[in-house]
């Protein structure tokens, strides 16, 4: 629970500073409510659109969680394939790096042609955006030998590829959990990008509408909710990671 409150407190502090600076600039420079909404307008927006926006954010969060799980599976599979020293491994590594080199806005029309603008596209784009840091870390972990431990199995002739991967995964568990937590933020960002490009649901879609309507108050509300959702999700992963690592160490 401490992790939840700590994350939420950190976000609240940053968001409050951001809003204060924004309003300081607004009143200092004498800018209209059109450019930067007043605190009263912001509060009115929370009152009028708050519930809808909470629903949009939860929708986005649920897709982000699913997308994150897919990206972990994707990165895990590709990095296991990529850790092989055969041609398959080399081809997989090259394909994985190349795929990431293309900006998602350029690839998205192809995704939308085949998958439409529903849930599947949002999931795939979210997974594509957050899988690369995971992939890099996993490739690093899987291809870096843990000499102290592996040496024993090499000498006894019991070493095989699966055992090597298990040793490396276990020895780098903390590093892996940090990367997983970091990529969770990207999963949220990826889902919002997908919704912004083409979707009829989620907070990204709501942000696009607010942008068309020059409604910064709604965008500020969206940022608040995105921050809360991200903080909660990150805290959840951290807690889960701690539980898993504690159980593994017990065993």
């Amino acid at each position, binding site marked *: 629970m401490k992790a939840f409150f700590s994350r939420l407190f950190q976000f609240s502090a940053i968001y409050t500073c951001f809003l204060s600076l924004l309003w300081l600039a607004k009143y200092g420079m004498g800018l209209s*409510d*059109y450019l930067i909404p007043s605190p009263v307008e912001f509060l009115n927006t929370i009152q009028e659109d708050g519930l809808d926006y909470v629903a949009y954010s939860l929708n986005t969060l649920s897709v982000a969680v699913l997308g994150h799980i897919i990206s972990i599976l994707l990165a895990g599979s590709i990095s296991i394939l990529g850790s092989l020293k055969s041609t398959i491994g080399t081809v997989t590594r090259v394909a994985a790096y190349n795929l990431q080199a293309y900006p998602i806005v350029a690839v998205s029309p192809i995704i*939308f042609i085949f998958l439409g603008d529903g849930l599947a596209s949002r999931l795939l784009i979210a997974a594509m955006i957050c899988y690369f840091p995971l992939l890099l870390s996993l490739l690093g972990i899987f291809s870096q030998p843990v000499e102290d431990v592996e040496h024993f199995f090499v000498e006894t002739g019991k070493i095989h590829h699966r055992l090597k991967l298990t040793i490396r995964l276990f020895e780098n568990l903390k590093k892996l959990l940090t990367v997983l937590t970091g990529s969770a933020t990207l999963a949220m960002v990826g889902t919002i990008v997908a919704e912004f490009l*083409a979707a009829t649901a989620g907070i990204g879609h709501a942000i696009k*509408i607010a*942008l068309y*309507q020059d409604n910064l108050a709604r965008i500020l509300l969206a940022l608040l909710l995105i921050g809360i959702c991200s903080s909660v999700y990150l805290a959840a992963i951290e807690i889960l990671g701690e539980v898993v690592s504690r159980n593994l160490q017990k065993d």
Partner: protein
Amino acid sequence: MRIISLIFCIFCIIVSFSGCTSDEKTARPKVEVQPVVLRLKWLVNVSAAGEIWALKHHIFEANGLHVELKEGGLEHNAIKDLELGRAQFGVASADQVIRAVEKGADIVVLAQIFQKNPLKWAYDASKLHIQGPQDLKGLTVGITYGGNDEAVFRALMAKYGLSKEDIRLYAVRQDYTPFWNGEAQLWPVYSNVEGLVLAQKMQEHGKRLSFFDPDAFGVHLVANSLITSRRIYEAQPELVQNFTKALLQGWSQVIEPQNELEAAQAVHEFDNSLDIKLIRQQLAATRELVTTDTLPIGTIDKAAWKESEEIMLQQGLISKPVGIEGVLKDSLR
């Protein structure tokens, strides 16, 4: 030795000529030009043909202005730039102006560039026959949620008693795939720009494009208009007059049929993604939007602005009337 003398002679000639030019330059009276930034509503294309023409033919300079054209977009809004002092003039549509005025933006409208709104809905005329709004029943129509096309289409639906059960609305995105696939039978386009690009592509595929025009059925939402801040309007009337005059002169000349080829070439220099032939077609279509039979170019259609305000009120896009008449300043008349 002879070569050295020859080089020396050439050097002397160059120096003496450059000296003459320099003297001539200093002798010529310096014309003071005022730097001005114009933020467009969208990308530089045929909808900014008048601005491009005025720039190319030094009409702005003749009026003592050095104008820099800047592209607009979702994040580059002319009204915001005016308030932040990053631009002196801008192009915006009625929905943008009305929304901004409601929230306290102090801006004025100087001229209305488009007398008719180019926003129309494209459809395949080889499959559909749409005579009026009632023919839209049972069809799927693309709209940009939050965009001005949503306001226009919902106003049309309200005016002709069409409900959600009659028409299925489809969320528009940047590519035309849903339109090509037939998922949406009507797709919003700017008829003078992407409408004609789409028409060309459809023709190549044996289809025939036609437009459904809400304007023809009494739904008027004013499009591209010239705006400035009230601060500039009041403090620098001469600048405002000169700029408006130069811009409208640019538009008057660019839509002349005899200037079409030259105008297309000028637009092509800014947007070379389209061929000159297509830009000429776009210019012809733009001519229909800019001119009327009776009114001079740039005339502000006050009734249409009031109707735009009413549409936005009905659609809940503004919470109260903004008194749009107070913002309309026909600075040249």
